[in-house]
């Protein structure tokens, strides 16, 4: 289930990252791109629930660690959306993915060439705003004053640590300026189609078997069409 994959590094060499995969050399092979930052933890259990169901339904699926995320030892502060996009494109080729499934901010990273789905897409600026606000609120609780505007200006210049995540200046600028819209081959799945309370709004990590069933039914219906 757990293996490693060769993840491209900015200098052109390959590093090693972990991957959770169900590989039985089947025809339909789904690359799963997890959300970034805090939501990566909120969704991890649910993604495994989804992948177990896909495996039981005859679909190979792969959840690669991206550099600086999950178990990766690459420095978080050196990462950027552009590098993560390169990493997911390389992962799609390495695993021979036929389809892609991006979750929330993972939707920014899905390779354009593959058909697939983006679950509950979110805008980069919205994610950045949430993290800036979390730091600003935490500072206020501690009796200090840090405005979101000042933190953003500092982050764009030198990088900044928000809610425990080290963000480099490139990444802050990407989140502030860019939209990273999905390619024309990716369909959005909104929470209303899945029903139930969104897992990313819960304060504690959780999973929901009924939501996993609903999402997998949508994915299987699409995978069966081709």
């Amino acid at each position: 289930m757990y293996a490693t994959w060769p993840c491209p590094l900015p200098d052109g060499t390959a590093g090693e990252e972990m991957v959770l995969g169900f590989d039985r050399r089947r025809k339909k092979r789904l690359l799963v791109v997890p959300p970034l930052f805090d939501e990566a933890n909120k969704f991890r259990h649910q993604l495994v629930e989804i992948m177990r169901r896909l495996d039981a339904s005859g679909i190979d699926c792969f959840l690669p660690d991206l550099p600086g995320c999950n178990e990766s030892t690459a420095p978080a502060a050196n990462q950027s959306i552009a590098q993560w996009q390169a990493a997911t494109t390389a992962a799609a080729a390495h695993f021979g993915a036929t389809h892609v499934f991006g979750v929330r901010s993972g939707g920014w990273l899905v390779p354009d060439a593959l058909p697939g789905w983006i679950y509950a897409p979110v805008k980069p600026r919205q994610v950045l705003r949430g993290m800036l606000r979390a730091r600003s609120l935490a500072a206020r609780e501690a009796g200090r004053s840090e405005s979101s505007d000042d933190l953003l200006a500092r982050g764009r210049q030198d990088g900044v640590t928000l809610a425990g995540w080290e963000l480099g200046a490139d990444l802050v600028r990407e989140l502030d300026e860019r939209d990273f819209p999905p390619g024309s081959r990716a369909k959005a799945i909104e929470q209303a189609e899945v029903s139930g309370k969104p897992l990313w709004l819960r304060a504690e990590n959780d999973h929901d078997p009924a939501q996993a069933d609903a999402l997998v039914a949508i994915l299987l219906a699409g995978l069966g069409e081709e």
Partner: protein
Amino acid sequence: MLGLDQAQVDGFDGDTGLFGHLPELDSMAVAGLLTEIEDRLDIVIEDEDVDGEMLESYGGLLAFAEAKVVGG
């Protein structure tokens, strides 16, 4: 939202305490809550809007959101 029980949420009134009263509401959760409110109500919540009074109780948050929606 926040994984609170529906029964617990149904019992919320204007005096129900939020920040500092509900253990589920830490700073990350408050930040997520405010960002979600912005998105759903199509309003912008500035740093200076966020104060103890607004986050103290459900009534405070509701009054703030209503004023924002009406005021534009």
